[in-house]
């Protein structure tokens, strides 16, 4: 695996390498070099399988992180490729030329995070949110509780309780304060 990453380093600018397990690696690449690197990994280094493509919203850093998880059937190694894109510009290169099924992931990301993938087929079709007219719901600044209360009818009488406190009161009234001490230690 080190060989592969060294080969990749000769070709593109690898910002960061993390080894989670012997068979699970994460590398961070530049946005512009991603499609080239993925093509190289697929055609030359035998990473034939795109397992998934997902996004994480880093609201504090004003960035989206896209993760392309690919798999090598020869070496049985997972490789996750992280790319940070700007939260305001949110445009990314489409990879449906490399893996045909990527269009579906890109369509989902377009709906859930509002990330644009120009040239990706059928990217503007509704995925699960038909007739959605709010901001994309998986963005972290979308207040889903407020939206739910505004849109759907609440049934009165709903109660929520902290399971820990409830069980403490119900079963162990003399429960010592030790969990709090433990929490401080953490």
């Amino acid at each position, binding site marked *: 695996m080190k060989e592969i990453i060294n080969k990749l380093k000769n070709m593109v600018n690898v910002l960061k390498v993390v080894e989670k397990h012997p068979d699970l690696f994460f590398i961070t690449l530049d946005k512009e070099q991603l499609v080239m690197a993925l093509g190289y990994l697929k055609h030359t280094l035998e990473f034939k399988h795109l397992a998934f493509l997902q996004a994480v919203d880093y609201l504090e850093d004003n960035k989206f992180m896209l993760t392309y998880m690919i798999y090598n059937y020869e070496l049985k190694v997972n490789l996750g490729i992280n790319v940070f894109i700007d939260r305001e510009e949110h445009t990314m290169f489409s990879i449906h030329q490399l893996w045909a099924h990527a269009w579906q992931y890109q369509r989902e990301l377009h709906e859930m995070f509002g990330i644009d993938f120009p040239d990706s087929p059928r990217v503007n079709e509704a995925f*699960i*949110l*038909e*007739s*959605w*007219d*709010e901001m994309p*719901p998986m963005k972290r600044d*979308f207040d*889903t*509780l407020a*939206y*739910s209360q505004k*849109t*759907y*009818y*609440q*049934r009165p*009488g*709903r109660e929520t309780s902290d399971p820990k406190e409830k069980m403490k009161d119900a079963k162990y009234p003399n429960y010592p304060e030790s969990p709090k001490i433990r929490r401080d230690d953490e």
Partner: protein
Amino acid sequence: MNNKDLKEIEKQMKLANEGLPEIERDLFADDRPSRIEPLNKYLEQFLNWARARSLWILAFGTGCGAIELRPLMTARFDAFRYGIAGRPTPRQANVFIIGGYASLKTIKRIVRSYEQMQGPKYVIALGSCTINGGMYYDSYNTINRIDHYIPVDTYVTGCMPRPEALIAGFNRLKEKIQAGECDGMNKYADNFDWYKANQKRIIKDWNMPDYNW
């Protein structure tokens, strides 16, 4: 009241089917659902007795709860001994089990399937999500109360309820049918405007007929 007024009232009683393209409007009904009064006492009692023993479920799993319908149908719980069987289309079914959460996309299909079912028809709402949203109470995509969109006869609580609970729900439904208390269809017809307003409030691209049987 002159002829013009009568025509105006008649027009208001018709459904516009505005969600459909112009060319398709003639293909669908523009009549409102109408209330069906029960027959005379003893005949209705006999019919209810018969209805309670022939519950045919619509095979439409709307959420995760539909997974409980498989053990219900197969060898272990064998619901067929109670006269409960699955049917492939809404036209042949008279019980609709809302299996768990109903999302924005599913509620559209639920409404359409419910309206296509033949009366008398009954709805069992399965799981906490159909009652008050359950663990998805704050989700942007889960309908919190299903009874604001279609009438519900019986609720089965739990997350998930086991097939035994579902059988208990069926028994409760049978009791209610025999007592003549399940008139969800008439309730839907009587409060048609309220139900439609609620449905159209969340289904913003209304591209189906206003009522279809």
